[in-house]
């Protein structure tokens, strides 16, 4: 799965260079272990709320790479019919309720999805991902408090890559960090090395176990690193020289590979996974490029039932 996410984003970045991916994309290259470690404990029934940096979450939740690639290129066959693009990708079939272009907005939405689960006495849960920068937005406080007050089945996952766009998050964040804030709001929290997929997996298992047992919300603070720029177009020159290089040994995919090799898995086997992932994404990319754009009248579809512009545009 980590290979699939990486390959999807590498190909998407090529799409950006090829000028067929039109909107901004926010790659999660280097951060793949977090969604993979968490999503392993969730089923298609469970729900996911994601961010602007959501390709990895979406794929790990079970969305089709082909549909995602179509969406990134704004084509027919995209998860949102080409109307959402990278920042609004969603796949309700697999419980992925949407990326979000507004930092932190997904936190209160996730609390509400979990609220509905509780009201309906269903046996499922919600995961909500966001970045380290999002903990400075009001909805972080309001959403966590809400989930704790109503004892809702939601796992909050803070993917801490150290940056908020071009800003070092630490320079704009006071206090002891995301987990401390979560605890003060009444949400038990665990901190983990987010580039160690096994560690994430273990932490998620524990937290999700508690959530499924009805203990209310939990919080996972995963430290990771964003290898690329903030967007596909960002050269990230604001980073100190050598910082990216110093993180090379920390690449979650490289680390997982080392672990696998040490455990006796053949290198060729791992390489085959990578090759298969790349081939899958190349095929998805080819399919997307060959697909048409949605027709103009899609602009008026699915706005609303009552007072729809499809009936009268003005």
């Amino acid at each position: 799965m980590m290979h699939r996410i990486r390959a999807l984003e590498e190909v998407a970045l090529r799409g950006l260079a090829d000028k067929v991916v039109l909107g901004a994309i926010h790659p999660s290259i280097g951060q793949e272990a977090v969604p993979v470690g968490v999503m392993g404990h969730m089923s298609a029934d469970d729900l996911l709320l994601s961010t602007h940096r959501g390709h990895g979450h979406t794929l790990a939740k079970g969305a089709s790479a082909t549909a995602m690639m179509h969406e990134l290129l704004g084509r027919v066959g995209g998860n949102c019919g080409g109307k959402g693009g990278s920042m609004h990708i969603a796949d309700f079939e697999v419980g992925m309720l949407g990326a979000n272009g507004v930092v932190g907005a997904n936190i209160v939405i996730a609390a509400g999805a979990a609220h509905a689960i509780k009201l309906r006495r269903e046996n499922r849960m919600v995961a909500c991902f966001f970045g380290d920068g999002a903990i400075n937005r009001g909805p972080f406080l309001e959403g966590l408090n809400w989930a704790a007050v109503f004892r809702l089945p939601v796992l909050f996952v803070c993917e801490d890559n150290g940056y908020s766009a071009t800003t070092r998050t630490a320079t704009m964040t006071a206090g002891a960090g995301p987990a401390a804030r979560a605890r003060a709001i009444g949400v038990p929290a665990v901190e983990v090395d987010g580039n160690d997929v096994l560690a994430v997996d273990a932490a998620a298992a524990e937290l999700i176990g508690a959530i499924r047992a009805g203990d209310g919300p939990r919080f996972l603070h995963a430290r990771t690193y964003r290898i690329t720029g903030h967007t596909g177009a960002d050269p990230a020159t604001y980073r100190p020289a050598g910082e990216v290089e110093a993180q090379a040994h920390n690449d979650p995919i490289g680390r997982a590979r080392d672990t696998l090799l040490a455990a006796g898995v053949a290198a060729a086997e791992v390489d085959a996974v990578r090759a298969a992932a790349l081939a899958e994404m190349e095929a998805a990319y080819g399919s997307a490029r060959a697909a048409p754009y949605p027709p103009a009248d899609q602009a008026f579809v699915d706005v609303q039932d009552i007072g729809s512009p499809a009936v009268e545009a003005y």
Partner: protein
Amino acid sequence: MARLSYLDAGRAALAEELARDPLVWAIGEDLGRGGVFGQYRGLTETFGPDRVSDAPISEAAILGAAVGAAMTGTRPVVEMRFSDFALCAVDELVNQAAKARFMFGGQARVPLVVREPIGMWRSSAAQHSQSLESWYAHIPGLVVACPATPADNKGMLKAAIRCDDPVVYMEHKNLWGLEDEVPDDPDYLVPFGEARIVRGGGDATIVSWSAQVHVAAAAAEALAGQGIEAEVIDLRSIWPWDKERVLASVARTGRLLVTHEAVAVAGFGAEIAATVAERLGRDLKTPVRRLGAPRAPVGYAPPVEDAVRVSRDAIVAAVTEMMR
């Protein structure tokens, strides 16, 4: 039929929908003690605290959680207390609730109702008196309801709860006590986009909504005394609004006055006046006219507050002038 206040009509509507559909629920600050105006009195006792729930003072979470809960198949009714406080949750309403269905390519439905009482209510001052219905009419994806009567507050709230679109539901604080006949039919629904003819007349058309409808009706009464028969139309919902009925009326009378309590500048009266001028410009007997509040915040002292109200006399004067 039963004689109910505007407030109790809304309460009955919610109670009936809560009883009818287990997926309907309501949440907001202080609902467990009946809500700030008593619109929820007794409902927690009847339906339990999960169905009619207190909320923290977290407007963004109230609305944002409703978006999440609506997308996953329930039908939340959220209480914002005063429409002014809904300004603490505009991202959730405008960027999330209104757009989710479209931007996710039709995968989402967001059947939520945002109750946000509007309007001047003696000496509530600048942060508790606003009427911002034109804002939401401008936002694709939203339905905007502004009931003026007890019957409509029942039938429209029920329609809003059953509707699959997000509905901004604006009750007027000054109308809570207004009593009138209200149908008992549990399926009494007032459809959006169908105006109500408050009073017929062939000389001029007065279009209004919410509490201002009653001011317009009083003005029409006074005008009738002067021999001027004004037709008064209560739009009931401003998105969608009943263009057909308004155009038909103005085509007949040749004169349009729109009056609302909100600020005139960029108020929804501008949309109506502009539409009528565009469509019927050649056939009007007199230019379209609008009456709304001056572009000033609402003040606390009565004379200052009253200075921004559109009075019955102002409407009478405007129509009289239009008849010349």
